[in-house]
């Protein structure tokens, strides 16, 4: 059994804390409502769909599709990219695609999750599935 499954806010751990711990172990955690079955992201204490309080942690395949993309241009620096990714498990999250020029990312691209590090902080990013190991 997935050890993380037993963790939730009732045990005194915050949704953000559990999410961070998943990232530390290289996984993308999300919640599923035990009442209505909907996938929930970002992590929280109440189901935004049915209002139930029984959100159970799961990890996912990390496979998704780019739903929306934009390139943000900065002075004297390469643009960076911001995307919304639809995960196979049924939730949408904001992230960025790495390994591709910011303005080359397209809606519908198949992408895979991985953890990047900014200092000690684990950051959820995506790469093209064709370039994922």
């Amino acid at each position, binding site marked *: 059994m997935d050890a993380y499954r037993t963790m939730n*806010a009732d045990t*005194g*751990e*915050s*949704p*953000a*804390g559990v999410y*961070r711990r998943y990232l530390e172990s290289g996984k993308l955690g999300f919640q599923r409502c035990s009442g209505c079955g909907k996938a929930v992201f970002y992590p*929280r*204490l*109440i*189901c*935004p*769909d*049915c*209002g139930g*309080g029984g959100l159970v942690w799961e990890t996912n395949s990390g496979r998704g599709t780019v739903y929306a993309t934009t390139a943000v241009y900065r002075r004297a620096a390469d643009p960076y990219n911001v995307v919304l990714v639809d995960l196979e498990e049924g939730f949408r999250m904001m992230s960025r695609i790495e390994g591709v020029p910011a303005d080359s990312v397209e809606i519908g691209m198949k992408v895979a999750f991985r953890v990047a590090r900014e200092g000690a902080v684990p950051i959820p990013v995506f790469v093209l599935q064709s370039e994922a190991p």
Partner: protein
Amino acid sequence: MSLRGKTALVGVAESDLGKVGPGFTPLDLVGQATLRALDDAGLDKSDVDGLFSASAYHHMPTLSVGEYLGIRPRYSDATSMGGSSFVSHLFHAAAAIDAGLCEVALITYGSTQRSGGGSLSYNHPGMYGLLLIVEAVRQLRGEYGVRQAHEANIALVHGNGGVLSSQVTAILARSG
């Protein structure tokens, strides 16, 4: 025309109080209190069509709270006037219900100010300003052990009171 007797408080609840664990957000506490208040009222989240909130953390709190809770209200109000915001929300909600703008109003607030450092993280110069000065002086003296700021030489203390009524900044430095 009076609002007296036209609406009723049908459920109330508090989130966990005092210090909460690391990572809990003001919105988590909003979620917790909302679950409990709906339970107290015997209502479902889908019954809520009016949303009222103020926040020290979210600039447009009815948007953040609406997203967190998954509520798309017919009517919302984010009037912010400090601690009396929620009294005004009660009046506004009663008026909105009376006017038919909504039927079930949720008035909600969450803060992790104490867990985030209490008066050390955010302060009011009128009531607690001296605490910030004490904190700054002890930091400059290097007296704080585990929460001692590294190489503290200059401290800036700022208090933000009522808008345009009390803005105070002091700069303290080590001598020698």
